[in-house]
């Protein structure tokens, strides 16, 4: 190894951010108005006036030059607090942070922007607030405007811009600096797809030029595309530090573990306030999912569950059909559970796969799934009950009852490997054949 490559190697492995056993507590004043004044007036009794909240607890971390490190975790996990401490925006309570290089924090776009100023003026001030010299901003002005793709509007007041234009311009300013260490917090989440891709390319370019990036996002896909290494934070601690794939899996697993805990605790009743459409012969009294016999609003894809519809009927009806339409909030896909057209889904009484008889009074229909197949995400349900005879001509008015958005629930994957792929629906395959072709 010659001297220059040895120097280059050392340059690359140089630690630029070193966080050692850092803890940060915030004071939560019992009385937000007078708490601080009381604390200042009576320092001996200060602990009477607030509770400590530990936002970051004993965190250690090393980041080397040129690394892009993703930081993921649920809201309130301590990500932003940690980054603010690295940026020098918050004092530490315990531990030590050593930073070698100029830090640029992109914690929020649009800081210091004046709505009456033109795009050009705002570029100048935003650039300077991010630590650039005036001359530097002026030199890069045309490059910034070019990157933001708003050439024709640059002299207009900033308030006239669309939110996408604002975000693009501000991000362009932020990306025009040649930072040594840059902290990006969710700032990439705005803009259209092509701009997001362009921004990611710019971040990669920054890193290859030796800059170090700490990247916080809830968008696991973005993190996975940008960062090789990621850190997972949970309740103020780092629970994982390593390859992003594994980190993302850990994060999703953590979310699921928490959801599992909450699965039985959080049940939301159906919304029966809205007046149903239809003739009104039947009323739905309750609708809910059960998993292992317990009521829940969360179902696990690929596992068993039951959907119960409790109703009351004003008179006996010889043939009633039930249809439950569910709409995915994530993808807009609508599914329908129609027992008669999907034989075998209806279990118990009445007999599977056909319209059923309703007597006057209360009753219950249970739709059982041995292996639920649907996309993940949040759903809302519509329920309709109508005449099950073959000559019935369907319309909402002629239904016995038709409820819109009566129940909300979520479908989740137990296995976390499907993270970051939008709505994913697993379609069962009946057979797989392999052949060798000559």
């Amino acid at each position: 190894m010659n001297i220059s490559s040895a120097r280059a190697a050392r340059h690359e492995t140089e630690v630029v951010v070193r966080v050692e056993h850092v803890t940060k507590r915030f004071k939560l004043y019992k009385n937000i108005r007078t708490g601080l004044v009381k604390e200042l007036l009576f320092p001996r009794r200060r602990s009477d006036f607030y509770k400590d909240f530990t936002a970051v607890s004993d965190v250690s971390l090393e980041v080397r030059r040129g690394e892009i490190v993703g930081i993921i975790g649920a809201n309130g996990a301590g990500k932003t607090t940690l980054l603010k401490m690295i940026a020098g925006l918050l004092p530490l309570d315990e531990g030590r942070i050593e930073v070698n290089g100029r830090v640029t924090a992109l914690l929020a776009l649009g800081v210091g922007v004046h709505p009456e100023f033109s795009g050009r003026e705002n570029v100048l001030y935003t650039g300077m607030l991010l630590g650039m010299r005036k001359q530097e901003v002026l030199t890069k002005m045309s490059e910034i405007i070019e990157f933001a793709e708003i050439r024709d509007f640059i002299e207009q007041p900033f308030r006239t811009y669309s939110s996408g234009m604002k975000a693009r311009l501000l991000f362009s300013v932020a990306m025009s600096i040649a930072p040594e260490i840059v902290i990006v917090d969710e700032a990439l989440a705005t803009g259209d797809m092509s701009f997001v891709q362009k921004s990611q390319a710019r971040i990669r370019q920054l890193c290859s030029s030796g800059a170090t990036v700490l990247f916080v996002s809830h968008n696991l896909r973005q993190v996975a595309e940008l960062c090789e290494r990621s850190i997972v934070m949970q309740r103020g601690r780092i629970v994982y530090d390593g390859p992003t794939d594994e980190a993302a899996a850990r994060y999703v697993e953590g979310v699921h573990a928490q959801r599992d805990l909450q699965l039985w605790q959080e049940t939301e009743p159906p919304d029966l306030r809205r007046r149903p459409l239809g003739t009104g012969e039947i009323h739905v009294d309750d609708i809910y999912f059960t998993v292992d016999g317990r009521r829940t609003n969360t179902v696990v894809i690929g596992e068993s569950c039951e959907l119960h519809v409790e109703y009351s009927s004003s008179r006996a009806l010889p043939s009633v059909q039930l249809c439950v339409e569910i709409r995915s909030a994530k993808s807009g896909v609508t599914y329908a559970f129609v027992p008669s057209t999907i034989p075998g889904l209806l279990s118990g009484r009445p007999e599977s796969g056909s319209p059923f008889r309703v007597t006057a009074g209360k009753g219950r229909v249970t739709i059982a799934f041995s292996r639920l197949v649907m996309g993940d995400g949040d759903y809302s349900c519509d329920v309709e009950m109508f005449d099950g005879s073959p000559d019935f001509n369907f319309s909402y008015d002629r239904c016995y009852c038709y409820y819109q958005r009566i129940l909300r629930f979520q479908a989740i994957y137990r296995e976390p490997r499907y993270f970051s792929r939008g709505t994913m629906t697993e379609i069962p395959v009946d057979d797989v054949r392999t052949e060798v072709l000559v």
Partner: protein
Amino acid sequence: MRPLTIRSTLTSIIRHRELVWEMAVRDLKGMTKGATLGYMWILLRPLIQTAAYVVIVSYVFGSRSAREGTTIAYVMYVLSGMISWQMVSRAIEEAPTLIRNRMDLVKQVIYPVETLPLTSLIVGSVGAAGSLIVFLSISMLNGTMQLSWALLPLPAGLLICFTLGLSWCFMIAGTLVKDLREINGIMIGLLVYVSPVVVSEGMVGRELWTVVQWNPLSHVVICFRDVLQGEWHPVSWAIYVTMTALALAAGSAVVTRMKVAVNEYI
């Protein structure tokens, strides 16, 4: 320790001078953007205030001394006092909200908060500079020019240091205790009547003049007026210099120690 904190704080200001200047320009532009008279307001305000004080003191209170001398002499007296008073009073009134009003900036960007008072001072000095120009022009027309004008940088330099120190303290304290803004506003509103801005020794008599002397801000006004009108009050100068040194030392110590910590409270 003390000289060190003063030096590091001042060094930081010098290092960020470009930012300080541009932010002041931005604030000035922002203040007047959309107003028909634009920058004229910055100049008009102190002049109207001067006129108001002259009218109140000489006609409403019917001060004999104010009317005995020529009206123009009294106008010049008030105007010379207003120049330094408006700078100090504006700084004291604004300081408690300096950080709070720029919350998003201070919380999200690594902003050198120690430069905020200077930015505010530059904005405030535009009005004072206007008053000064009016004062100097009228004096020249009257033929009452003074050689001591050459010494103007001296009280001006002290004024910058004094208000900076004071603003640093109030800026940090105001972030912690929101009421400070109101307290300062009321204090300044009252103090102007026990200051030599509107009253002179000859107008109020010995006893009241002693009260005026107890107002620390009086000495700032007296020293400024010394240079503008060719007078000499050595005691006031000694007090002014001492206050400036103390304010600078206390202010830089407070801002160095607390500038990151205050982020927790905003």
